[in-house]
């Protein structure tokens, strides 16, 4: 139990202002008002309005006869819309109540319009095709810099979530482009039907390298955000965006590529396994309260289980389970739901992409299921009798 005075003191020290008056004040009834689904719907509404506004801007540009200089019009609109809405959010729309009001929704839409125009203008100024550009890294770096500056200048978490996701996508894509240019021969195209096995291996190595570098960067990013959050309040939207993207990066994309191309079995991404093993074991140590706890038998068994999952390249499953455990400990339903949504997807993707016959896959499914049940039985009945009697599905 925690006394009211202690709660207020701890929260204030952490960076979340709370006063006796606020606790004694009238109920505002925000039950669910700031729930994740309500937030998603507002973002959808903002994007909906954004789409329609972009259509009208296109018409406006055409009416003025400025099709050839559209990037300047888009840039000007982007700077004005972003600047004005950012100023509003910094000075007049700081609180969540205001941000989620109707006017808040309008300023969110304006901000989205501004950022989208800025992004389009960046591509326009570089004047290259999106998928083949060699200078996309400039767009990625500039847009990421805008995102970082935005996050520091004002607090609009819905937009920050989207902006972080878009920045990560751009950075990841530009990393892939750069590695492709370095490692693959000139004139290579993914649309060629019959690739040689050497080229497939080369493409695979590019994909593995991008996955590894991105995962490493994202894991460090998550660790940094968690470290910061332990000491001082920081909204979790950044964490959610990074975790969502990390989840996407852990999909066995290269395996699907191999299946589509009828390629021979490809080398395992051991680097990714090691990164995930270290990340998840560290997270587990964080959850159980420190590294010294690994001296006890039950935590040691769990660590062995994590190592086996990593060795089997079950990266996604490991990540999803870690996310769910993390969500439970932090009472963070969003992390838990992200993990729960990813878990069946990863399980399906893993077994689907396994280089084995269907008979072997069915044995593997049964074997892994029995192994999990046996480990559970061993933990509950042999190691942790205190967990007996868990009921109620």
């Amino acid at each position: 139990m925690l006394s009211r005075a202690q709660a207020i003191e701890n929260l204030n020290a952490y960076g979340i202002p709370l006063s006796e008056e606020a606790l004694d004040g009238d109920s505002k009834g925000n039950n669910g008002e700031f729930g994740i689904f309500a937030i998603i719907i507002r973002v959808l509404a903002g994007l909906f309005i954004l789409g329609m506004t972009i259509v009208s801007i296109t018409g406006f540009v055409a009416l003025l006869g400025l099709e050839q200089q559209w990037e300047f019009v888009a840039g000007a609109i982007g700077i004005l819309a972003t600047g004005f809405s950012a100023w509003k959010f910094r000075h007049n729309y700081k609180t969540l109540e205001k941000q989620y009001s109707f006017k808040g929704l309008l300023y969110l839409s304006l901000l989205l319009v501004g950022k989208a125009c800025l992004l389009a203008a960046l591509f326009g100024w570089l004047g290259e095709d999106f998928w083949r550009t060699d200078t996309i890294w400039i767009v990625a770096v500039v847009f990421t810099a805008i995102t970082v500056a935005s996050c520091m200048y004002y607090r609009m978490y819905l937009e920050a979530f989207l902006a972080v996701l878009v920045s990560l996508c751009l950075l990841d894509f530009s990393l892939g482009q750069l590695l492709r240019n370095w490692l693959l021969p000139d004139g290579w195209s993914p649309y060629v039907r019959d690739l040689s096995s050497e080229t497939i291996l080369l493409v695979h190595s590019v994909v593995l390298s991008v996955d590894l570098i991105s995962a490493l960067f994202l894991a460090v990013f998550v660790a940094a955000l968690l470290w910061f959050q332990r000491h001082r309040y920081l909204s979790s939207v950044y964490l959610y965006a990074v975790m969502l993207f990390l989840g996407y990066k852990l999909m066995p994309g290269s395996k699907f590529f191999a299946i589509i191309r009828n390629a021979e079995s490809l080398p395992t991404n051991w680097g990714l396994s090691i990164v995930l093993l270290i990340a998840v074991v560290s997270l587990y140590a964080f959850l159980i309260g420190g590294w010294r706890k690994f001296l006890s038998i039950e935590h040691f068994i769990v660590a062995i289980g994590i190592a086996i999952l990593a060795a089997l390249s079950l990266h996604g499953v490991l990540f999803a389970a870690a996310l769910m455990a993390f969500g439970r400990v932090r009472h963070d339903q969003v992390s838990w739901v992200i993990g729960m949504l990813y878990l069946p997807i990863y399980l399906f993707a893993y077994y689907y992409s396994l280089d084995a016959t269907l008979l072997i896959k069915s044995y593997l499914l049964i074997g892994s299921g029995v192994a999990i049940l046996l480990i559970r039985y061993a933990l509950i009945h042999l190691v942790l009798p205190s967990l007996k009697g868990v009921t109620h599905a």
Partner: protein
Amino acid sequence: MTDNTEQQFSIAEIDKLYRNGKLPRAGMQFLKQMVAPRNVWGQWADKLSLVVGVVLVLAGVIFFFAFNWKDMAGWQKLGLINLGLVACVSAAVWHGLGQVVVGQALAIAASVFVGVFMAVFGQIYQTGADAYQLFMMWSILILPWVILSKSLAHWTLWLVVLLTFVSAFWLQAISSGFEILTLLAAIGLVSFAAQSYLASKRPDSWLDHSWFSWLWVIYTFAITAYLCGLLVFKMRYGLYVGRDPFLGQYQYLAGYFGLVLHAIGYYLTFRYFKNLVSAQIWTLITAILVSAVFLILFAEALFDNGEVGFLLGGLIAAAAVTGVFWGGIRFLSAHQFDRHQGKGGANA
């Protein structure tokens, strides 16, 4: 009068403060981490490992029989499945069903084995019967176990089998039209309403789990919204009538019925589903639906008029969507406090 500063916070009180808008989400999470024991997640890990383990084993068994049945003799196939079935039922009875998670999981496994048995039996002794009969018999045979097991997961399995039976019956015996979606949506709506109503009468019982409500709310919303969309498409463009003995004459009726079901779902969400978030979702997604209908029926015609059409069409559509959302948010603001006061509770 009690000194407020000495008040002690428990998990429930922190939740209450959050629901009353006195504590932000981050504050709620921070305080809960201070109050709740750190190892609570072990119980969750226990359940997760049980669910994942059982799902993997069952998936393996299903794939084994689905893909390898040609290489096995008939007695082997049926014998193995029956062995699994009897083992699961025996173990479930030994563990007990009511409120015992292992017993419930075994009962669900037994229900899956019934379906596998019927599928394999049908492959060995082919009678030419339609697939819907399998699902019909499957749903009838496992119903007693479903009732006895007192598990919402088991009810979910049963509902999936039932919905598959209804869909297959319609497609194989009657028509390829989309009218059946009204019945599928109605089943989802009844499931959601019945569970929410019974949970409100018996809080903290096995019926009181919000995931089940969420599942069928989202399912019903998706189907009814799809029906409304089809109605609008039918009005604007007409719809292709495939293998339909009624020549599409009931398509309008189905669309309007979908609209009515959507409205009933809206009412029930406010009435029984205690978490206000669901009501918000329904309101705001309905706003999106209305906006999309507007775009299809009116804005598209504007876009056909060149640059001016783009400019005006985009502006009018953006204004219309904004207006719809303004109405939705105003509506929620007007109802939120009252609903909140009346309906706190286990689903929140």
